[in-house]
């Protein structure tokens, strides 16, 4: 993500892009949701980290309506209402507070996985695409190999081997995620390689590394930015599947996917327990997809599928 930020900073028209984005109602809706989600995550995340450092974990729920850990058995399994807008769970904990408390881990994992994918995939994809030949063939085989494994299965195997938990989930997801970026970057590198300005650069005495730096990174990132935005939602979706299977943050920490799994026992009578976290994931993923689509409309370019 760091790279993207520096390059979008350099890109002068980024304010203009923002205005164009906000002009469409659906994209504006998505953008607002995303901004709310990430800014909330930053605030809440900082509070949680500081709280755990100074030994006052209650700092983590100072902004929340309820303590996400404290059971109130008298309040258990309440329907969504004005006091508990998403209802309560079997121990009487406010589901909305637990969802808000869990937000930073999802935000962090989406940024790290997408950023890691762009870094690893970008490096490998650009070099493979530009150099061609054997390097490229090996790279193609490698990415195909990783893509042949259904992502969830590969992540499950990785976690079965090394252990369960948030960090393991993150590592597993980076491992399953980079090949798609390697492919995108490779396609970009091949597209740009055939441009005549690369020939001109070669005739100007630039080395291949110079050319990748000067002519490839910026346009490739430009093409990949919409896809990466959309992917933020995909990562959150995917992580929720892992945590649904118990492969994410371990209890008692709340986690959107694992909350769904916990609620299954109380389904269908106390439906909100499982459905509410699921709906939140859906909304955030839709928001990311809307913004990604909007960005692609503005930056131009075709639809990319890995």
């Amino acid at each position, binding site marked *: 993500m760091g790279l993207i930020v520096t390059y979008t900073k350099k890109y002068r028209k980024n304010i203009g892009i923002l205005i164009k984005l906000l002009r469409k109602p659906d994209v504006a809706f998505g953008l607002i949701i995303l901004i709310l989600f990430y800014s909330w995550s930053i605030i809440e995340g900082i509070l949680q980290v500081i709280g755990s450092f100074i030994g006052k974990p209650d700092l983590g729920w100072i902004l929340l309506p309820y303590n996400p850990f404290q059971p109130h058995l008298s309040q258990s399994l309440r329907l969504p209402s004005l006091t508990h807008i998403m209802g309560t769970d079997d121990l009487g904990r406010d589901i909305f507070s637990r969802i808000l408390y869990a937000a930073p881990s999802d935000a962090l994992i989406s940024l790290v996985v997408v950023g890691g994918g762009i870094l690893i995939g970008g490096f490998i994809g650009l070099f493979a695409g530009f150099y061609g030949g054997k390097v490229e063939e090996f790279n193609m085989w490698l990415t195909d190999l990783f893509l042949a494994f259904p992502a969830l299965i590969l992540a499950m195997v990785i976690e079965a081997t090394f252990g369960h938990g948030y960090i393991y989930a993150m590592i597993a997801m980076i491992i399953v995620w980079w090949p798609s970026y390697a492919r995108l970057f490779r396609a970009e590198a091949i597209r740009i390689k055939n441009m005549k*300005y690369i*020939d*001109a650069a070669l005739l*100007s*005495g*630039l080395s291949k590394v110079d050319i990748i730096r000067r002519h490839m990174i910026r*346009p490739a990132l430009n093409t990949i930015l919409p896809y990466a935005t959309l992917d933020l939602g995909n990562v959150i979706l995917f992580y929720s599947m892992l945590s649904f299977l118990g492969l994410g943050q371990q209890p008692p920490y709340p986690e959107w996917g694992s909350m769904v799994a916990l609620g299954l026992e109380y389904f269908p009578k106390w439906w909100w327990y499982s459905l509410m976290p699921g709906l939140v994931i859906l909304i955030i993923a839709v928001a990311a997809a809307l913004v990604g689509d909007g960005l692609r409309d503005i930056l131009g370019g075709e639809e990319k599928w890995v």
Partner: protein
Amino acid sequence: MGDFLIINNVTKTYLARRRTIADFILRRKIPYIRAVNGVSLRLDRGKTLVLLGESGSGKTTLGRLIVGLEKPDSGKILVDGEEVPYVGDKSYMRSKLRGKLQMVFQDPSSSLDPFMTIKDIVSEPLIKLHMPKNEILRMVIEALEMVGLDKSFLNRRPIELSGGQRQRIAIARAIVTRPELVVLDEPTSALDVSIQSQILNLLVKIQRELGLTYVFITHDARVARFIADYVAVMYLGKVVEYGSADDVFNEPLHPYTQALLSSVPKVGVRELPKTISGEVPSAINPPSGCAFWPRCPYAMNKCRNEEPQTKVINNREVRCHLY
């Protein structure tokens, strides 16, 4: 006809497609395409050589060989006594000719990086010369002025320019280092007629000012006639006729040259020119003997079986059994 540019029996072939493992297993031979086939040419400093031919004649490949964007399979290309280095070779970085051979491409929209400013684009050939920044800027502005643009373009981007302006930028980039030789690959064929004459005039003016040597690639006989000092007519990878422009355009000797020149529509004549039949055969499987015989109005038996050799007639090289 000179010794500044010497092309000596150059051949370049490509595989018609990539070789795969299945071809290995099935023992399939992949056909070769002889894009450039035994071409020898010579040119003086400061002159313009036009490579004239239809698509598939190998003129663009020859142009890319001359600047070192491709590596010849056999034969040599010398510029000013120095062998042209291939840009992918390690020796390229040490060569005296590095950065001294430039090329202007046909499609102005793909020849400029859309993400860079004009200043960055035009200064690109200078960045490896380790010059002070203000010196670079001065040379960039000078090059821009030479192609008829001014300082105000420095911070613009290619997308803001018209096709003709982009081609001017590409020319500025090619001449900013005062190169030895510039290959111009159909620089005007993507432009409007009214812009084409502007660019052609500009190229002639720059050549006179800087004493540049041009290799000009085109399929348009009218453009060739205007700009050429020497013309090499190419057909299926071979030069079928080479001579000074005056000679070739006034009295074409090779039947293909004759057909090419007579196919140019004449303004103010309401009659379609007569022309030969057939199309350029595939380079994968060229006809035996003289490659032109299936379309040639004068084809003899000899033409089908025997490949004509280059003969020199009145200061001109022709590959035809008629002579």
